């Protein structure tokens, strides 16, 4: 597997995520689209870190660079936090509107 394979997969994931956000009629599906977007970024970071950054050579010991993987882990944490807040807001929406379809939650206009 070369870098290109990973980049193509992450680009497909990203596009699917955007597509889901734009077309889905249910807030939970939109959340799933957002998770896809964030995961495509994590994949990108890990792949770039593995293929682009040369490993360090310390006294004959080859140490691979893990900057990208660290960023990916933070990305997962933030995605979880975002999902928690999103679900809480969806609950509030359901209480007030009795629906979680974005097109029915549209009283503010103009």
């Amino acid at each position: 597997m070369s870098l290109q394979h990973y980049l193509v997969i992450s680009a497909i994931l990203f596009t699917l995520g955007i597509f889901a956000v734009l077309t889905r009629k249910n807030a939970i599906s939109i959340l799933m689209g957002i998770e896809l977007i964030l995961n495509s970024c994590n994949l990108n970071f890990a792949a770039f870190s593995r293929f682009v950054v040369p490993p360090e050579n310390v006294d004959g010991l080859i140490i691979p660079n893990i900057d990208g993987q660290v960023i990916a882990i933070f990305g997962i944490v933030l995605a979880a936090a975002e999902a928690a807040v999103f679900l809480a807001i969806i609950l509030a929406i359901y209480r007030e509107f009795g629906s979680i379809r974005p097109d029915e939650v549209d009283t503010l206009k103009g």
Partner: protein
Amino acid sequence: MDYLENIESLAYFSPEILLVVFAAAVIILDLVVKNRESEKVAYLALVGLGCSLVAIIITHSALGTNESKNLFWGMIRLDGFAVFFKILLLLATAATILFSIRSEELDVRLKGEYYALLLAVTFGMFLMASATNLLMIFIALETVSLTSYILAGFLTHSPRSSEAAFKYITYGAVASGTMLFGLSLIFGMVGTGDLTTIGQQLPVVLASGEVTALGVLIAITFILAGIGYKIASVPFHMWSPDVYEGAPIPITAFLSVASKAAGFALFLRFFFSGFGNSEVMQSIDLGLLLAIVSALTMTIGNLAALPQQNVKRLLAYSSIAHGGYLLMGAVLLTNGDAAIVNKGIGAIIFYLIVYFFMNLGAFYVVVLIANEAGTEMIEGYRGLSSRAPLVAGAMAIFLFSLTGIPFLAGFFGKWVLFTAVIEGNLYWLAFVGLLNSVVSLYYYARIVKAMYLESAEDTESFSFSKGTFALLTVFVVPTLLIGLLNIFYSLSEKITLQ
């Protein structure tokens, strides 16, 4: 570039640490306080902000002038620029807390969480103003975003507020996801997250042909989605009118001033450090892109504000338009001449100081009228000149200053901004800005007309406490005088990025 290690950095990180400590203290105090009407929690949060302000000044004086320190192995940088934005953001939070104490729409049972979240969002904004690493930029942005989503939806049992939070998080999550994708591309191009190293490496990889200019432009466009959403620039402005209308008024005021200022701090530092090299800027033609975004932002903001009947929503569109004016200064970053770049940064900083006073002042009047008249619509402002003459006068000053009528603060803010843009040879952009200022007079004057020329059915006069007038004075006096005081010009000229 020398970096401070983690333990050494803590001494310079005290303002942020104090904010977190006080956020925890606010929650604990809230558990202890029995009387729900008591404002002790809010005052503790204000004390926390005060301690943090003292810490900022102490760390700044320990730093020395024109010095900068790279903390936590280069994750964040402490310099004059960061210190200025920290103080501005901190004062905006303090003003928001004072508004919240007087606002009657907030649920008294949830005070502890509310003020703790306000301190947390300030903490995130401090990081935004000083982040110098791609990872730190993203974490800071998400800290601010996640807490703002909750604050926007803080009115329980208000469908409007929940809807605002829902729209905010949907737009926001997509924008920040897109931004992270752009950051990952930049990371892939240079193999590091450090902004300064990116600034040095990017011209090298571009020259060697490993990376094409188009690739960099695509990555930057993705990143602009995230930043553009924070500063509500076209085409990522759609959330802002709905969120501003639905959120509690103090939070609307906070988002329109602090969130925007933090977004600009991030924007300036990111582009100056990461892409400040003029070869990179010219090869990807970023200046034209930013200039078009700026012109569209102010034009769409002003035109959409014209028919609005809700004052909160009107001020939301007006704040989009002001974001457009501020972006004119950001366009100057792409200028090859360092003197003009610094002029652009100085103009943005001066305009943000002016905008802080006039916009927060206008929102404070909206809070007061919502309390007394129970409405946010323009009808509620009819006959205000006889019902509450001082408040009406203050509101008129804020609105005329937002328009840019001489010789109020807004006029001088625009003056500094437009002269900088003209010096950068962007005559058409300055002209668009000028036309927009004229258009904006129409909708600001509509509120003034309602206050002074129309009469209300109910003529009973409003009564406000002495504290209200004192707080109003804090905003009115600078709006009248700021342009005449030299100190603010020299302050904005002194603050530069390195």
